[in-house]
């Protein structure tokens, strides 16, 4: 990485978790130990994962730097690279370049309440920050935490293996919603932007962090704005087709800003200034 930002370092897959329980089992989380241990990253950054001979694609680092010694990627099977990654077994090798991009403004969140709003696999990048701010060493730096995770159905929910641990954390609420009612489901039903205004959430001294499909980010941001959140108190992280991660391949820009180097983390105040092209 140091002298050649195009050359991946090798990583070994040491654990694979099946996340979704849908018919196609389309999301898995891969725990990877990198050959070059010097991989310093912050919550919000991403990396390029290579399957040599197939290609490379960008994925957020869903692990937190407080989880030392390994990194995690949660990957939804969608194209050829993700198909190849999904066929990996423990012990197999991948290539990794990174970390790339900016990160969540953790210092600006200190002393504040945090509201996480995730849609589907959008929980993956938020989880890095959730695990950072809830780490024993850091929990006291932040006030009350709400995690609101919405999924299409219970089978589509991700990181269910984290829920029990999160629920044990001091001064933290975890809330779930699914799009349509299901037998045996006693949580919320509906889209997050519809549910949010009635969840008793105050914008006072609160930073909202949201991620999901672009349409969900836009609708949730609007709902939060209507609830009184200031544009610079709404933070999101965007996904783009990013080939290089280096601001050179030219495809991930929104106006003059490149998601790979100026993002992927943006405040709504920044996005409001940018052309609407994401």
């Amino acid at each position, binding site marked *: 990485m140091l*002298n*050649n*930002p*195009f*050359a*991946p*370092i*090798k990583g070994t897959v040491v654990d694979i978790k099946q996340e979704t329980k849908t018919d196609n089992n389309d999301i898995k989380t891969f725990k990877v130990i990198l050959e070059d241990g010097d991989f310093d990253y912050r919550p919000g950054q991403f990396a390029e994962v*290579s399957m*040599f*001979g*197939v*290609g*490379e*694609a960008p994925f957020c680092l869903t692990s937190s730097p407080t989880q030392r010694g390994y990194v995690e990627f949660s990957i*939804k099977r*969608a*194209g050829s690279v*993700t198909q190849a990654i999904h066929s990996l077994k423990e012990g197999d*090798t991948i*290539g990794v370049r990174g970390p790339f991009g900016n990160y969540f403004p953790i210092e600006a969140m200190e002393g504040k309440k945090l509201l996480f709003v995730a849609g589907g696999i959008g929980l993956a990048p938020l989880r890095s920050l959730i695990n950072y701010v809830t780490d024993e060493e850091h929990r006291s730096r932040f006030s009350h935490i709400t995690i609101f995770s919405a999924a299409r159905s219970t089978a589509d929910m991700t990181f269910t293996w984290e829920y029990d641990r999160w629920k044990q954390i001091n001064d933290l609420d975890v809330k779930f919603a699914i799009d349509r009612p299901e037998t045996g489901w006693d949580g919320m039903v509906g889209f997050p932007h519809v549910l949010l205004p009635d969840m008793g959430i105050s914008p006072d001294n609160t930073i909202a962090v949201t991620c999901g*499909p*672009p349409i969900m980010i836009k609708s949730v941001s609007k709902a939060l704005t209507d609830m009184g959140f200031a544009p610079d108190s709404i933070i999101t992280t965007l*996904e*783009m*087709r990013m*080939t*290089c991660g*280096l*601001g*050179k*391949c*030219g*495809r*991930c*820009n*929104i*106006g*003059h800003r490149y998601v790979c*180097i100026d993002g992927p983390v943006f405040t709504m105040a920044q996005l409001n*200034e940018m*052309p609407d*092209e*994401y």
Partner: protein
Amino acid sequence: MSVISYKMLQKANMADIVNRWMKDYDVIAPVKYGMAMEFRHIDDPKRIYLSDGNSIKTPKEFFFPQNDELFEVRDGEVQAPISAKPTILLGVKSCDVTSFPVMDKVFINEHYVDPYYKVRRYNTIVIGYACNKPDDGGFCTTLGISPAHNEQCDMFWHDIGDAYLIDVVTQNGSDLADGLPDASQEDIEAAYNAREAIEAMMPPEFDLADLPDEKTFFEAPFWNEVYQRCIGCGTCTYACSTCHCFEFYDERTKGSVKRYRNWDSCMYALFTEHASGHNPRPTQKERVRQRFMHKFCYYPINFGVVSCVGCGRCVRQCPTNVDIRRIIKQACDYGREVATSVE
């Protein structure tokens, strides 16, 4: 640009001096093929073809090849040898000479340095070559570039009949020109009169200062029309001296995987399509807007220069006559209109 010295090279002696250089350098220069010309590695200096008019393809490919092997994975190890031979790039028109420092801003900047581009660029001596008559579609002067200026190169040649008048600009250029006779004052004046003459033939076509700000530009109504004749073939981007977009491609052979980067084009739907199917630039309107705004708005914001040098290749080669000059002029007109209505 200040010049170290002015030298003379008789055209009849060009092959001799290039032969001398070829002992230490790879020489790349225009050669004629059919009706066209293109930059090629030279093995016989007699094939060098210096003329008015420009190559179909830009010489950027010698720093940023259309297909560029980045690394090979063999026996599980990533091997990425990066090197370049000392090279002389001869006969580059002012527009293309100017395109190199524009491209440098993307490939060699404070975020990341592209080692492949950098090693080729830093090992190359650039010899510019003046236009004596304007090329169809060329509009360098509108962008502040003279068709006969000697900036950003090591040496700059002017055709003055039987000889080339040479502006020696850098020490590298001076070393190459070693042994050449000094030019007479009369020949220097002849070259500069020719420069003034061609500049006078190409009055600026619009003023970039009139361009609207990013949001106004992005939301301008003319985008709803200018894209309509674009067939999304990508020719403009491949022909462009400053387009730098690329995509990776892996090639697997027995026991080896090679990763290449290939030129890509913002004119294509797949350029920005997410794996989910979502596409932030879903129609040709957004793609055409991206190309022009990238060059005339985003690039200036990020790097302080427009990413266009007025070479006119896209104008000459577009199969449906999309004309960058007309579009930017339209943007300038719109910018003035909006500015006036605000007042």
